[in-house]
Each structure stands twice: as structure tokens, then as C-alpha cells.
């Protein structure tokens, strides 16, 4: 069982610079053309955004939402998918452990930045648990989407330490993605450069699985 550890322990001691959400949005609008439309964020992230904590907190809460989804997916899948065995089961177990650790670390990081972590969203994965094949198919989508989500959000991160943490996590998501693709008989990459997704597009992609 992997031990949860902060990707960058020094985050715990990070100064809170008191960047208000208002100033972040202004800066975001000027500097980045509002890459991700905060107004379009779903209810499960809105709660955290109401709390001042700066742009990095918003991004971390976005990541936390995705990690909650993934952790729930693998946790529930391991219990519910009949016939899940061998390499697929081992991999799902490893990934579940990793995602659970990501949830813990992101929660701690957000708190250390003075932000309010989002709560675990209600989830519904439909018939993804009906067979190992269906489970692994959705797993591949989640991991690939996670990679694109982190890669899309990372350039907006202001703190170098938070960027390091995001990079540390996205690398693991990419490793997951490749391993699942191998099991699915799929190419391990889709081209030579991983795509980025804007937050809005990621939220749209995962909306079907979120109940709250």
C-alpha cells in the first residue's frame, strides 16, 4: 500500500499571499485571456471558488475534483467489476492507491494555501462496471483526460512549487494511461505530443459521471 506523501513537502510552509479571487480573474483575463471560464465551472467546484485562495487554489480544486472521480471509479470498480482479475486487477489496484494518494495530497496542499478543498462529488459511472472491458475502456478515457486536464491547467499555475506538484501527478496519470492502453491493445500514445484541454472541456467530459 503506497504511502501518501506531499509531492512537495515545502508546500506546507508556503506563504499565503492573499491573492483575492477578483485580482486573479483580472490578471487571468489580461494575461491569459481567461483560459478557463470560471463562470462555467460546475457546482462541485463553485463551493471552493467562493473561498479566496488565489488562482492556484482554483486549479488545485479542479484537479482534486478529477482525482476524486478517478479514486471513486477505481475503488468502486474493484468491488463491482466481475471478472476483473490478473494484470487488470493489479493495475486497477495500483491506480486506485495512486489516485487516493493524489486526493489526500491535493486536499492538504489546498488547505496549506489557505483554500477550501472541494468535497468528493457524487458519482455515477453508468454501466462502466458491467464488464472488465467496459471498465478498462472508461479507465483509459479518464486517464487520458486527466493528462490533458493537468497539461492544460499547468501553465496557469503561479507557484513553482504547485507546478512541481501538478507535474509530479500528471506524470503518474500518463503512466496509468499507457498501462491501461497496453491492456486495451491500444497504442500507448496518441501522437508525439499529449493534447491539452481547457478546464471547461474537461468539466464537460466528466459531467456525465457527476451526480451533485
Amino acid at each position: 500500500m503506497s504511502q501518501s506523501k506531499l509531492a512537495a513537502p515545502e508546500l506546507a510552509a508556503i506563504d499565503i499571499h492573499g491573492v483575492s479571487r477578483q485580482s486573479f480573474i483580472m490578471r487571468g483575463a489580461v494575461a491569459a485571456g481567461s483560459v478557463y471560464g470560471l463562470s462555467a465551472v460546475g457546482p462541485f467546484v463553485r463551493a471552493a471558488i467562493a473561498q479566496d485562495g488565489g488562482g492556484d487554489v482554483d486549479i488545485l480544486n479542479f484537479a482534486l475534483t478529477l482525482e476524486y472521480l478517478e479514486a471513486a471509479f477505481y475503488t468502486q470498480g474493484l468491488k463491482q467489476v466481475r471478472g476483473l482479475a490478473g494484470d487488470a486487477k493489479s493495475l486497477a489496484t495500483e491506480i486506485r492507491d495512486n489516485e487516493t494518494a493524489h486526493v489526500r495530497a491535493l486536499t492538504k496542499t489546498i488547505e496549506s494555501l489557505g483554500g477550501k478543498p472541494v468535497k468528493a462529488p457524487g458519482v455515477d459511472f453508468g454501466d462502466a462496471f458491467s464488464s472488465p472491458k467496459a471498465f478498462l475502456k472508461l479507465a483509459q478515457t479518464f486517464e487520458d483526460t486527466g493528462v490533458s486536464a493537468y497539461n492544460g491547467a499547468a501553465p496557469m499555475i503561479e507557484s513553482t512549487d504547485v507546478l512541481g506538484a501538478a507535474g509530479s501527478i500528471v506524470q503518474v496519470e500518463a503512466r496509468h494511461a499507457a498501462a491501461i492502453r497496453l491492456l486495451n491493445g491500444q497504442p500507448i500514445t496518441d501522437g508525439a505530443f499529449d493534447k491539452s484541454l481547457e478546464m471547461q472541456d474537461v468539466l464537460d467530459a466528466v459531467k456525465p459521471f457527476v451526480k451533485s
Partner: protein
Amino acid sequence: MTGALQELAEDPGDRKRFLRMMGGAGAASALAIFIAACGGDDEESSSASSGSSTTMKSGGSTKGDLAIVQYALTLEHIETDFYNAVIDSGVVKDQALAETAKMIRDNEQEHVDALTATVKKLGGTPKPPKTNFDAVLEGGEKMVLETAATVENLGAAAYLGQAGRIKSKEILAAALSIHTIEARHAAALNTVVGKTIVPDGAFAKPASMAEVLPKIKPFLA
């Protein structure tokens, strides 16, 4: 695509548009757009551009970014040369594995091409390293596969180690888009050689230049 290229070249500071392109146009072509937009009339090698909205928004930090991109390019050359040497030698007998090596080689070659163009756009001169993998090849298929795994994991760690040092958001986005590809390669090769896909556990560890350079030295001629 040409219209989009021109648009981005004319307003190269628009990160939002760039990032949209990364998702919509396909990352490879988007990277080409990014590289084109970083050059041309907007190429700023001096810090005099601090007042204007330049492509790289980097002012005097282009030098730092250039050094990082040249470093990444060196690593990509080593990887490409390695896979080419492996493929040419025929030491990997398994068909599926040989195909994987070719696919990875193709990815690395695209990285070389993109980073070479970026070095030039930043005003640098690409210097491909001279490499030699005889010792690895002589070790046979098992040694070759283990070396491949080692190199990919090292490459991923190297990119992660540089992410926080890159000043230009555009170059950072490009580096991140390569970083996760190296991670995919690493995970696949780890599986092939019977190692865990996540040797560092839930959080990948970065490697600094000082840590990486001695490890690639054996492959330099």
C-alpha cells in the same frame, strides 16, 4: 490551418488561443503553429521588448529557456539515436516489441524536430550530440530493453525537473506535452521489463540537470 497559423502569428501572445489549438487542432500541428508563432518578426532575443506583448513574454529570460530547450533536445537526440541503433541492429526479435520501438522512435524524432525548430526560433544553434550505443547493443535484447526503460524514465524525470524553470508559458506547455509522452513510454517499457509502472509511487520525482547529465554520459561518443 494556414489561417489559424497566420492568426496566431499575428497575435502570438494569446495564450488562450494557443491552448485551444492544443486541444482542437491536434497537438502535433498545434506545436508547429506554436513554433511558427514564436519566430518570424516577433522573435525577440533582447530584453528591449519588456513593454510589448511579445510571443514569449520572456524578455531576458529567453536565454534560460533556450538552455533548457537545448538540454531537452540533447536528451531527445540521445533517445532517437538509441532507438534507431536498436532498430537497425535487429537485436529485438519479438515483432510486437520491435514495432513498439519504432513507434517510440517516431515520437522521439518528432520531439527532435519540434525542439530543433524551437532552438532556432529562440536564436540558438542546435548541436546534435555524437552518440554511441555499442556497449548496450552488445549486451543483447534484455540489456537493450532495460536501457530503453532507464532512458525513458530518466527523460520523464528530466522534463519534470525543468518544468518549474521555464519562463515562457508557451514553451512550458510544449514541454509538458512532451513530458507526459515520455512518461507513457516509460510505463510501457517498465511493463515490458517487469518493473512497476510507477517506480516513484503516486508522485513522480524530478531530476535536475546535474542528476541527469552524468547518467547520459555513457551514451555520448
